[in-house]
Structures are given as structure tokens and as C-alpha cells.
């Protein structure tokens, strides 16, 4: 075996895993926003009277004028599809039989990224009004996934 030949019996690769875990807290405004989802099943935004804007999800400070926001507004459960995409693959790369629909749902001057369901994918269009569907209260743990998905709203 020459010096530049690979030993076929040698381990070809060294396999490892980086055990990185994270715990993300939502911050002062985020904490109140997710508490409201968990306990009330409501979505809140904060209003800036200076700029006449309402941020969803709620924020502590106006990103335009940097003033502190104290006016909390129940923004309801209905938003408008701003843009969407169909996912034909799962997170692990395996194919899906029916596509998963992920959309940015505009609410006031902000919005949420979430799933859309209870509608055929080819019927979804930009501008469609959709309504949040929550998990039962006992199963909610203060996460964005306490909302199962958005469904077409009955207006």
C-alpha cells in the first residue's frame, strides 16, 4: 500500500453530534402576547398613537418612532392571506401526499406566519380572509402552535 492510498479498513469518517439546545423566552411583550393565546385564546397587538400603527404580534416599542407602546388591542382572530406557499416535502425531506400550506397572514400592520387548512390548496388566494383555530384550552402551553392553523373565515 503506497503512502497515498486509503486503507479500506480504516474508518472513512468520524461521526458526531453537537448537543446544542436552546431555551428562548419571548420577552416582556412576547410573554403577554403568548399568555393571552394560552389563557384567553386571543391575539393582541400594540398600537402606536404617534405613527398610527398597530403591531402584531405585540411589541414593547414602536420600530418606527421607538416610543414605548402601552396601548394593547385585541386584534380579533381574522387576518388576510398576504402570501402563501405549498410545501410538498416534510421537514425531514420525505414527500407529502397532500401539500402543507404556509402563509403570512396579515393582521393590522403586522401578521403571523402559520399554516392554512380546511381548504383545498388550489382554492387559496392572496387576500383570502382566514381565522385562527386554537387547540382546546387544556392542551395550550403558550406557544405559536397553540394555534393549530388558520381556516377560511365566515364573514
Amino acid at each position: 500500500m503506497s503512502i497515498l492510498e486509503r486503507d479500506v479498513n480504516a474508518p472513512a469518517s468520524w461521526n458526531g453530534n453537537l448537543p446544542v439546545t436552546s431555551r428562548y423566552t419571548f420577552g416582556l411583550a412576547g410573554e403577554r402576547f403568548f399568555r393571552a393565546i394560552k389563557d384567553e385564546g386571543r391575539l393582541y397587538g400594540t398600537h402606536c398613537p404617534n405613527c398610527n400603527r398597530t403591531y402584531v404580534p405585540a411589541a414593547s416599542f414602536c420600530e418606527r418612532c421607538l416610543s414605548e407602546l402601552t396601548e394593547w388591542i385585541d386584534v380579533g382572530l381574522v387576518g388576510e392571506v398576504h402570501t402563501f406557499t405549498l410545501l410538498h416535502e416534510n421537514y425531514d425531506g420525505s414527500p407529502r401526499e397532500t401539500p402543507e400550506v404556509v402563509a403570512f397572514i396579515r393582521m393590522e400592520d403586522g401578521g403571523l406566519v402559520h399554516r392554512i387548512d380546511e381548504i383545498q390548496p388550489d382554492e387559496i388566494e392572496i387576500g383570502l380572509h382566514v381565522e385562527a383555530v386554537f387547540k382546546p384550552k387544556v392542551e395550550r402551553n403558550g406557544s405559536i402552535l397553540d394555534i393549530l392553523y388558520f381556516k377560511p373565515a365566515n364573514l
Partner: protein
Amino acid sequence: MTAKITNFPGTPLGEEDFAEGKVLFNYDQMHGDFAWDTGIAIGRYLAALKEGIILGARCATCRKTVVPPRTVCEWCFRPMQEYVPLQDSGIVNTFSLCYVTWDVQRIKEPEIPAVIEIDGASPLHGIMHKIGGVDPQKVHIGMRVKAVWRPPSEREGAITDIMYFKPIEEV
């Protein structure tokens, strides 16, 4: 610099705040899987460890023997002449008594990482490993040590096929 500050601004959080559900949080685990190609020389090195041999490489031009082996001499950039089996003993070049584990847990019995100059390699050439089977206070630079190998059936072609280096009884 922070010694003068008695009250830090913000909202401090303790482990009990998470346990008691006082604060909401999102727990996540990164998929940090990786595969590192062993290459030609390190592949040979790992295969040799499985056989209970520490392998080096010799440059005929520089008359240097390095460990772990490589295919190209890092001094003259010529190809190495050959792989050479070395002794599984050596001399402690430097060491540390380490009272924390890699994930920052405090431990009472220190781990002793050390650079060991392997017998058969050129002077000052060695590998990093652990020292064991010794009173930590008695470890010293220049101490002669010998590899303690795993039983052949448990070896997997890894640097951990050597469990640690143990002092050779000085006569």
C-alpha cells in the same frame, strides 16, 4: 468591571421560574450531526489504533517523524516517505488538572489532559491525551507514561481506543 454594579437592569430568570411555569419559553434542539472525513493519513492512524499501534509518518528529507501521521511534510512540503509504527509510551510534555468537564460541570477528581511526546517520534512531537491511574498531585512534566488500551474487542478505530496514559513505575 461589573463589581460596582449592585442592581442589574432587566428581569433576571432562575431555573425555578421555568420549572414553575412563571415564564413561557420555547425549547429547541439543533440537529448538529456531522461527519468528518478522516482522510488518508488519519484514516491509517485510526485503523492502526484499532490494532493497538500508534502510527507516525517519517520524512526522509527532514529526518523527522511526526505523530499523528500526515501525507505531506509540513517543513519541506515533500511527500512523506513512510508510515512508521511508534512505541505506545512517551514523556509528559505539558499537562493540566481540569476540575470542570467539557459541559462545565464541576468535578472533584480532576481530568488530566496532557501532551505526550511519543517514543519513536522526533523530540517534542506528540499527541494530546489523558493521564490516569495516578495521584493528580504527582503528575509532572518529564514523567514517563505508557498507553492503557481498551481490550481489542472493544476498539473501534478511535483515539479513545487508548483509555489514558499511565505512569511507568520508575525504578
